[in-house]
C-alpha cells in the first residue's frame, strides 16, 4: 500500500520538477547515421565511435521542487576519449525539435574541433570561437540556441553571490566566446553547460589486467539483457588476496556437511529489479577475480589436451602487430600456428547440401565474365570492319568475306581467392533450435568450395581463432594447390568453434599466402561474425586499428580484401576497415550459404 502511494507521489513530483520538453525529444540513435559522417567531415578522427554517455553527478544549485523530488542530481554531458565520442542518449532541452537536433550537431562540431581538453573554460571558448568564425551557418544556429538556453538557466533568485558571479561569467562566455578568461570560484558545480565538452569522468584506482599469469576464461555467459547502450564507469577492485574463500576443513568431516539445510529466505529474489539497481549505481565495481565464487579449483580451460587437438604444423610463424597509440609495428609480436585436422576422415558431401551444390556447380561452370570481342574470326555475330577493310585494301584480295567476323567470348579468368573464416567462440551461439552460427559458417564454406570447384578458379580455405598473441590458430582446410575432394570435405565437416578473433595476424598470413599466387586478381574473402577482439588488450580501437593496418598492407600488395559479416552492428566499424564498398552485411544468417557464391560472382565481375 505504501509502495503504491509512494509511486504516485514520485510520479507527481517528478513531473512537476521536470524541465524537459518531452514532445520535442530527439534520440541519439535516430540521428546517429547522419552524425557519424558529419563528425568525420568536420575533421573528427575516422576510427572513433559515437556512443551514448551516461549521466554524471553535478553538485549544482537546484530549485526547491527539484530538491524535494530528488531529480536533477545527475546530468548527461558530452565528452570524448581516444576510443569514442560520448553524447547524451536523448536531448529534450529546447521546446523545438530542430533546436535539439542542432545541439547534437553543435556538440559533434565541438568534438571535432577539440579532441583533448586541457583547460575546460578556455579551450571550450576558443573552439567555440573558431567554429563561429569558420562556419556562418552553424554560427546562426548557435546564437538561436544560446538565446533560448540562457532563459532556462538558473537566475539570480536561485543563486548566492559567488555562484551568481560565476553564472554571469559563464553566460558572457556563451554569448561572446573568448571574452572571459577566468571562471570565478564558488561552492558546488556550475549548472552544466550543454554547449561545451567536458573532460572524461574520474576513474578510481585502475588495476590493469595482468598478462603474465595465465587467466582462465569466465565460462559463464554474459547476462542476456544489458541496461542500456551507455557504457558504465567501471572501477576495478583490488581483491586479489589469495586467502579469501578457501574453506579449510578436514577431509574426514566432509561427510558430516552433506545434509541439505533449508534456508527460509524472507525476501524473494527479484531478478528484474537488479537491472534497475544497476542504473542507479554511478560506479559498478568490478572484481579482478574472474572466477565464480564457488569454483576455486583451477582447471586449465584454455587449450584442449594435445592429443585431442588438431595437429600443429611446424614451430609457428612470427608476425608483427600494429600499435596505434605508438603508431608503429611491434615486430614478431604474434605467434601464428598453422594447424591441420589430420585425423579427419574423408567424407562425402552431406545429403542436405547436395541439391544446392549441384546447381551452384552448374552455374559456376559456365561463367561468363567480361565478354571480349574476338576479332578476325571465321564466323561470328558481327562484322569486323577493320579486318574486312584490310582484306579489301589488300591487293590480292578475294571477294569472299573470309575471316572478317567478330564474336564475343568469355575471357580466361585469371583470379585466385582465399576464403578466411572466423571460427571464434562467438560462433558457438545458436540461431534457432537446431542451428548454431558455426553450422551456418560450415555450410557456407562447403557450398562455396563446391561452387568454385565447378569453375576453373583457384581457391583456398582457411579458418582462424586466437588466444592472445601467443596462439593465433590458423586452420588449413584447403590450400591452393590441393585438389578439392573428399579429404577436404572431411576437414570441413570437422570445423568447430575456437577462441577469440585476432584478425590482424590472420589477415597478414593470408596476404603472404596470396602473394605467392601469380594470377592477375587476388581476392581475400573474410567471413566474420563480430569485431576483432582477444582477451588481452586486443579489442576496441586497438583491435580495429591493427586489423585496418593489415588490410591496408594487403591492398598495397595487390590483394583485394572483402568482408562478409553477420554482425548486425557491422556497419559501425566495417566501413572504416574495408571501405564503403568493401563489405557486405548479411542480416538473415540462414541465407549466408546461398549468398556467399553470389557475392563471389559479383566481386569477380561475372554476371
Amino acid at each position, binding site marked *: 500500500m505504501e509502495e503504491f502511494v509512494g509511486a504516485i507521489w514520485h510520479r507527481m513530483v517528478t513531473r512537476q520538477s521536470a524541465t524537459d520538453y518531452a514532445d520535442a525529444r530527439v534520440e541519439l540513435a535516430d540521428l546517429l547515421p547522419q552524425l557519424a559522417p558529419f563528425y568525420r567531415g568536420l575533421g573528427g578522427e575516422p576510427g572513433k565511435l559515437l556512443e551514448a554517455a551516461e549521466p554524471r553527478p553535478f553538485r549544482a544549485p537546484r530549485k526547491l521542487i527539484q530538491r524535494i523530488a530528488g531529480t536533477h542530481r545527475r546530468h548527461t554531458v558530452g565528452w570524448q576519449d581516444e576510443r569514442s565520442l560520448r553524447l547524451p542518449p536523448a536531448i529534450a532541452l529546447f521546446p523545438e525539435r530542430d533546436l535539439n537536433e542542432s545541439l547534437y550537431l553543435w556538440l559533434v562540431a565541438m568534438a571535432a574541433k577539440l579532441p583533448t581538453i586541457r583547460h575546460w573554460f578556455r579551450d571550450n571558448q576558443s573552439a567555440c570561437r573558431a567554429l563561429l568564425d569558420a562556419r556562418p551557418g552553424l554560427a546562426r544556429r548557435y546564437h538561436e540556441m544560446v538565446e533560448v538556453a540562457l532563459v532556462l538557466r538558473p537566475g539570480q533568485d536561485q543563486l548566492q553571490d559567488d555562484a551568481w558571479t560565476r553564472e554571469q561569467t559563464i553566460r558572457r562566455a556563451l554569448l561572446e566566446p573568448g571574452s572571459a578568461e577566468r571562471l570565478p570560484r564558488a561552492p558546488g558545480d556550475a549548472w552544466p553547460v550543454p554547449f561545451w565538452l567536458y573532460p572524461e569522468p574520474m576513474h578510481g584506482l585502475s588495476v590493469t589486467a595482468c598478462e603474465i599469469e595465465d587467466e582462465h576464461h569466465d565460462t559463464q555467459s554474459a547476462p542476456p539483457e544489458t541496461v542500456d547502450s551507455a557504457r558504465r564507469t567501471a572501477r576495478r577492485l583490488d581483491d586479489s588476496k589469495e586467502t579469501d574463500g578457501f574453506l579449510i576443513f578436514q577431509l574426514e568431516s566432509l561427510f558430516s556437511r552433506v545434509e541439505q539445510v533449508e534456508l527460509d529466505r524472507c525476501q524473494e529474489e527479484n531478478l528484474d529489479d537488479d537491472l534497475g539497481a544497476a542504473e542507479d549505481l554511478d560506479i559498478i565495481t568490478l572484481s579482478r577475480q574472474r572466477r565464480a565464487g564457488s569454483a576455486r579449483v583451477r582447471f586449465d580451460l584454455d587449450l584442449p589436451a594435445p592429443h585431442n587437438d588438431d595437429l600443429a604444423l611446424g614451430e609457428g610463424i612470427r608476425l608483427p602487430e600494429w600499435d596505434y597509440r605508438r603508431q608503429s609495428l611491434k615486430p614478431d609480436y604474434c605467434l601464428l600456428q598453422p594447424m591441420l585436422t589430420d585425423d579427419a576422415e574423408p567424407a562425402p558431401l552431406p545429403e542436405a547440401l547436395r541439391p544446392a551444390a549441384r546447381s551452384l556447380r552448374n552455374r559456376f561452370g559456365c561463367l561468363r565474365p567480361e565478354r571480349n570481342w574476338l576479332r578476325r574470326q571465321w564466323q561470328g555475330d558481327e562484322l569486323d570492319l577493320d579486318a574486312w577493310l584490310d582484306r579489301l585494301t589488300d591487293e590480292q584480295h578475294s571477294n569472299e568475306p573470309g575471316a572478317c567476323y567478330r564474336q564475343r567470348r568469355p575471357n580466361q579468368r585469371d583470379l585466385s581467392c582465399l576464403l578466411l573464416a572466423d571460427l571464434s567462440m562467438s560462433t558457438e551461439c545458436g540461431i534457432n533450435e537446431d542451428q548454431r552460427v558455426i553450422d551456418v559458417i560450415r555450410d557456407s564454406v562447403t557450398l562455396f568450395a563446391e561452387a568454385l570447384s565447378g569453375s576453373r578458379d583457384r581457391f583456398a580455405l582457411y579458418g582462424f581463432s586466437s588466444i592472445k598473441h601467443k596462439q593465433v590458430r590458423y586452420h588449413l582446410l584447403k590450400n591452393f594447390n590441393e585438389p578439392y575432394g573428399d579429404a577436404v570435405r572431411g576437414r570441413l565437416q570437422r570445423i568447430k568453434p575456437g577462441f577469440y578473433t585476432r584478425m590482424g595476424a590472420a589477415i597478414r598470413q593470408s596476404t603472404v599466402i596470396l602473394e605467392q599466387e601469380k594470377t592477375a*586478381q587476388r581476392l581475400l574473402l573474410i567471413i566474420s561474425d563480430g569485431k576483432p577482439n582477444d582477451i588481452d588488450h586486443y579489442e576496441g580501437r586497438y583491435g580495429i586499428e591493427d586489423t585496418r593496418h593489415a588490410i591496408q598492407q594487403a591492398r598495397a600488395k595487390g590483394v583485394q580484401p572483402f568482408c562478409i559479416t553477420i554482425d548486425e552492428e557491422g556497419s559501425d566499424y566495417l*566501413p572504416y576497415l574495408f571501405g564503403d564498398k568493401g563489405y557486405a552485411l548479411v542480416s538473415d544468417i540462414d541465407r549466408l550459404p546461398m549468398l556467399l557464391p553470389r557475392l563471389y560472382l559479383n566481386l569477380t565481375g561475372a554476371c
Partner: protein
Amino acid sequence: MNKSMNANIRYLPQANEVDLFHHAAAVKLPVLLKGPTGCGKTRFVQYMAEQLNRPLITIACHDDLTAADLVGRHLIGADGTYWQDGPLTRAVREGAICYLDEVVEARKDTTVVLHPLSDHRRELPIDRTGELLKAHPDFMLVISYNPGYQNLMKGLKPSTRQRFVGLSFDYPTPEREVVILCQEAGIDKQTATQLVALGNDLRRLKDQDLEEVASTRLLIYCALMICSGIAVRDACRACLAEPLTDDSETLAAIDRLISSYF
C-alpha cells in the same frame, strides 16, 4: 579525338610541374600524369601546349580502342583505297603533343603501340604501309591516369610505366583552390572560401562514407551554378551531394555539412 590550339589557357601551378614539363620537352622525354579525376591534368596539358606553342591532339582512351584507331587504317574512297593517319601518327608526323587521357582504360595490347615512341628510338612502325616513321622533333607523348583503388587491377604494365617521366597531381591547396574558383566561375572570394572549406570537409569522408570525393571540377560547377543565380544551398546539393552518393543517410549528413556553412 580533337586537335585544338587555344589562346590564353588559365592554369595555376601547384608545385614545379610546369618546370618539369618544360625540361622533359627539351630533352624529348614522354610524360606520365597521375592524379584523381578533376584535379587539373587536362587543363595542365592544354596550358603547356600553349606555352610550348605546339598543337595538342587529345585521345580519350576506352576499352574498345584498337591499335588501328591510334595508328591509322586504309579507307575506301571514290578513287580506291587510301591510307588515313590515326591521331597518334598525325602527332608524330606533324610534331604535336599527343595526350592519351585515362590510358589504363585501353587494353594492354593497344598501349604497347606506344613503346617504340617512348624510348630513345622515337619512331612509329606502321605495319600496314610498311613505313617506319621517325618522330618530328617537336613530337611529345603525354599519358594520364587515375591511380585510385578501383583501378588497381587495370594498371599500366611495368614495362610501359618505366618509359615515362612521372608527375603526381592532387587537388590544390585551399588558398589556390579559392583563386581557381574565382577565376573560373567569377564568384566572390567569401563564397569561394566557404565552398573550398566544404569541399575539403567532403574529402575527409573518402573511403569510409564516399567512394569518390568532391573534385575541383565539381566545385567549379557549383560555383558556376551559384553565379548563374541558383540559391547556394540548392547548388551545393545538386553539384556536390547528389553526384557523389546515393545513400540517404550520407546525403543527410552532407546536407548538414552544407548548412553549417550557408
